[in-house]
């Protein structure tokens, strides 16, 4: 094991940036935390019914007719809704666009309004296990399942297609003809046209480039695999609808339900408590189940619970993408042209396909590729009859990095340069001169920690261990996201600080607690900002339940950005708390506010510090009213560039069996400011389970003959356990600085973005043969080595 190297903060603070337990650590470690499936036990809601939805056995089919009469007669069945019922059939078509990627929007302003391809319980099944046809409410899940089996469906089985290249060809089965007559998603308002970046003239430049490399990389579809399966309980009594769920965006869910069901916003109450892992799942097109569960509750007058089984929770995936890349450079390593083209397998519904394929790479062009004079990016999102692909931790960036790091490594080899030098020569951001300080720090630290100079050798030319094993090192890097200016779309972030007469504090900084550690960041930030009260994190209560009826609007857990976005507002609100306390003190102490200050819980005269009163006494002898400051602040739009992230990997390949062992990963994040060191390290280390999973084992497998997915379970869909994980060395850096009090950026998603490419580059360094697609399973090695 590498001996740990704790980071040294750029600015020493009392609470922010420290190593300490999470605020919810004991409740979670002792199992007392209640998730929605725990809160909604039948014993707590005696009248509760269970809902189960019909799933398509076919990859592509239409329901010609449906007869639920037998199901309705089954004892214990309380309601059956089918796609033919008017209350279902009249629902508007929808999509995953109920956010603009970060925050609540209306139906009219939804992000993908050109791709409203989802029906709530429709009659058109677009992938095997699609939720269509009918939904049942019954006294138990078993009865509901039995009722579904009694529903007679006449299917029109349609031809299907799984591969996006095949789906683009003329004559392929067309999945949503009204939206995409050739399965290719058309130009849209967010992503733009097929060629969505075209800077300079790559064609001219490639013609005169001294060195050119071309490559391909294929990113397969991993799934978020949150352990906490989707679950909701909906209670629609008279004109009021209450939803408890493990959705990670309460305000957005309320908007969606309100508009889809035609209820005033104040008649919809959404409550979200702890969520057992999110990873982008909530930003997907899953929300239709809220609606059919609500309609069942309305029909029966009883609370209805709907939850996915593990199999059903395989409901979204990373966007699979086939990328090609081409780079033109001068012999001295100056890159003059970059061209990237992607074909993304959207699966059955468009969801956020174009966010992954176009939006994220556009952001990357703006920052990392700012110094490259000629850049073209071209992309095609293609419907197929696979699991819909949507948001997953590192959306779009993970796929892009797989090709980006690939062409950099190839070009460096062709030029005879160290890829670190090549990277520093070419990449930074548009507000910066090269070499970029952040990228430089990240790559140099990574090189040191992995032992780059000693271990990097010519491809395949390193020493051989145990006669068949070869080792190599590699890395990949990426611009981080999101700095504060990149969060401008969110609008105001609202928080409320209540200081009680005993100086205990309630911090309303609503966000659904999904495990990211933002709750601890915000409490640390609050303790830091209210330091003049002489209090610590233990004196601050952070309500963990978001309830749209009582909470401020929640700040959605996207972009890994909540931890610092809310803390920035808290820092400003604390100044107002101080001002109000000084006003109270001024009246009591008969001293002008400007002559007073507060420190360590005491209000004192600046001219005579010994003349002081405790803040508690100010309350006790005054009006005893708490000081309540509510504040909203839009993200600072000052363009400050972005910092960099990187992963370095050391691998060992058994050339006899094709077994790959990752020996070590170094995970580097320039954070701007580390808000909470233990939480940041947990994200860095934790992200590797997903990153390494995508690199080595995680993949959804389909039966090509039927289109039926084969491994919707945790036995055949392989997630790394403790025994599978290598030595991980987390490195937190503070080099770049953003705007505001802290100048931090999001780090959680970026921790895994570079992992697959770092591993693949290390594999190439080990064996001298490139493998272009992930996950890299043993058979791919053997094939690449000519042994299979």
């Amino acid at each position, binding site marked *: 094991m*590498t*001996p*740990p*190297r704790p980071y040294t903060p750029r600015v020493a603070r009392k609470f922010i940036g420290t*190593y300490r*337990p*999470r605020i919810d*650590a*004991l409740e*979670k*470690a*002792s*199992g007392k935390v*209640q*998730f929605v*499936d*725990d809160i909604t*036990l039948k*014993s707590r809601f005696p009248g509760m019914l269970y809902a189960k939805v019909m799933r398509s056995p076919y990859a592509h089919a239409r329901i010609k007719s449906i007869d639920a009469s037998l199901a309705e007669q089954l004892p214990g069945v309380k309601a059956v809704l089918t796609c033919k019922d008017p209350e279902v059939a009249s629902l508007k078509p929808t999509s995953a666009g109920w956010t603009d990627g970060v925050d609540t929007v209306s139906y009219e302003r939804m992000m993908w309004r050109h791709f409203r391809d989802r029906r709530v319980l429709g009659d058109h099944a677009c992938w095997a296990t699609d939720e269509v046809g009918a939904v049942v409410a019954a006294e138990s899940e*078993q009865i509901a399942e039995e009722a579904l089996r009694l529903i007679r469906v006449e299917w029109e089985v349609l031809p299907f297609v799984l591969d996006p290249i095949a789906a683009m060809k003329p004559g392929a089965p067309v999945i949503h003809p009204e939206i995409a007559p050739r399965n290719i998603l058309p130009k849209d308002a967010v992503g733009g046209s097929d060629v969505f970046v075209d800077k300079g003239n790559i064609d001219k430049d490639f013609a005169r480039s001294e060195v050119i490399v071309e490559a391909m990389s294929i990113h397969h579809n991993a799934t978020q*695999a*949150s*352990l*906490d*399966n989707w679950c909701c309980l909906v209670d629609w009594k008279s004109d009021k609808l209450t939803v408890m769920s493990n959705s990670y965006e309460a305000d957005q869910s309320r908007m969606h339900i309100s508009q889809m069901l035609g209820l005033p916003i104040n008649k919809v109450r959404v409550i979200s408590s*702890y*969520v*057992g*892992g*999110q*990873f982008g799942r909530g930003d997907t097109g899953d929300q239709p189940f809220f609606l059919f569960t609500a309609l069942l509750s309305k029909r029966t007058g009883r609370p209805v619970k709907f939850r996915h*089984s*593990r199999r059903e929770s395989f409901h979204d995936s990373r966007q699979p993408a086939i990328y090609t890349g081409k780079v033109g450079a001068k012999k001295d390593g100056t890159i003059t042209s970059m061209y990237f083209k992607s074909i993304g397998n959207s699966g059955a519904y468009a969801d956020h396909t174009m966010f992954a394929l176009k939006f994220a790479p556009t952001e990357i062009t703006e920052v990392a590729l700012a110094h490259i004079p000629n850049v073209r990016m071209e992309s095609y999102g293609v419907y197929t009859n696979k699991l819909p692909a949507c948001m997953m931790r590192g959306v779009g960036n993970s796929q892009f990095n797989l090709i980006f790091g690939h062409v950099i490594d190839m070009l460096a080899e062709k030029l005879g340069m160290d890829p670190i030098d090549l990277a520093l020569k070419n990449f930074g951001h548009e507000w910066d001169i090269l070499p970029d300080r952040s990228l430089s720090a990240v790559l140099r630290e990574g090189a040191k920690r992995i032992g780059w100079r000693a271990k990097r050798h010519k491809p395949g030319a390193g020493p051989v261990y145990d006669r068949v094993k070869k080792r190599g090192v590699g890395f990949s890097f990426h611009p981080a996201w999101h700095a504060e200016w990149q969060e401008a779309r969110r609008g105001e972030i609202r928080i409320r600080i209540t200081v009680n007469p005993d100086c205990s504090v309630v911090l309303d900084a609503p966000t659904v607690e*999904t*495990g*990211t*550690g933002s709750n601890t960041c915000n409490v640390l930030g609050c303790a830091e900002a209210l330091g003049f009260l002489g209090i610590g994190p233990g004196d601050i209560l952070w309500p963990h339940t978001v309830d749209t009826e009582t909470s401020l609007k929640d700040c959605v857990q996207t972009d890994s950005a909540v931890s610092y976005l809310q803390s920035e507002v808290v820092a400003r609100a604390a100044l107002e708390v101080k001002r109000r306390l000084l006003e109270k003190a001024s009246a009591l102490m008969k001293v002008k506010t400007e002559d007073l200050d507060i420190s360590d819980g005491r209000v004192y005269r600046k001219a005579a510090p010994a003349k002081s009163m405790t803040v508690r006494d100010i309350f006790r002898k005054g009006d005893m009213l708490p000081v309540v400051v509510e504040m909203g602040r839009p993200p600072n739009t000052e363009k400050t560039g972005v910092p960099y992230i990187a992963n370095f990997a050391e691998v060992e390949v058994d050339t006899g069996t094709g077994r790959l062992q990752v020996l070590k990963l170094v995970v580097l994040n320039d954070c701007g400011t580390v808000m909470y*060191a*233990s*939480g940041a*390290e*947990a*994200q*860095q*280390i*934790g*992200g*590797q*389970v*997903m990153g390494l999973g995508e690199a080595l084992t995680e993949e959804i497998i389909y039966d090509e003959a039927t289109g039926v997915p084969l491994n919707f*379970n*945790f*036995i055949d869909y392989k*997630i790394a*356990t*403790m*025994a599978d*994980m290598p030595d*991980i060395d*987390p490195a937190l850096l503070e080099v770049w600085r953003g705007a505001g009090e802290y100048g931090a950026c999001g780090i959680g998603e970026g921790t895994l973005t570079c992992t697959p490419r770092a591993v693949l580059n290390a594999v190439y360094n080990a064996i001298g043969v490139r493998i272009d697609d992930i996950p890299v399973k043993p058979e791919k090695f053997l094939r690449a080595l000519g042994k299979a």
Partner: protein
Amino acid sequence: MATKSGKQAHYEKAPVKIKVNGQWHEFEPGRDVEPAMTLSYLLREKLGLTGLKVACDEGACGACTVLMDGKAVLSCMKLAVEAHGHEIMTIEGLADNDPVIRAFAEQCEPGYGTALQCGFCTPGFVMATKALLNENPKPTAGEIKEGLSGNICRCGCYSGIARAVQHACEDTAPGEKK
């Protein structure tokens, strides 16, 4: 997991007796317990012991781990009736100052992250650790990896968990060291 209650069962009507967290409970067949009912269902739905989680429901993730006679069992893979006459311990049966719970809560030693993030898998890991330490009070790093390799933490806190287990068997709280 109740089967259709209308059909008369062929099994004995004697109550199923299970000692849970130190207290004997009796479950009447047909009313409280059915032949196909899993132990996880019984503990969660009938006794309200929601610390254990059902995440995969097929023995692949370890989130439902409880102790049966001191050994780790996957309660989603155990029928409730199989626990008849046995002693079950769930996380609710542990004291708040249990050294394993404390070690998981307090892990923040630099370089290893925390031992939990979303906390969904944590009760399963804690109970698997209890079982491991029951058998092997001073496991090596390799034995910890092997002992806990039946549990999935999707947040990926394996380094922190391994560190917490080491701290737990040192029998001092990690926060008090250094």
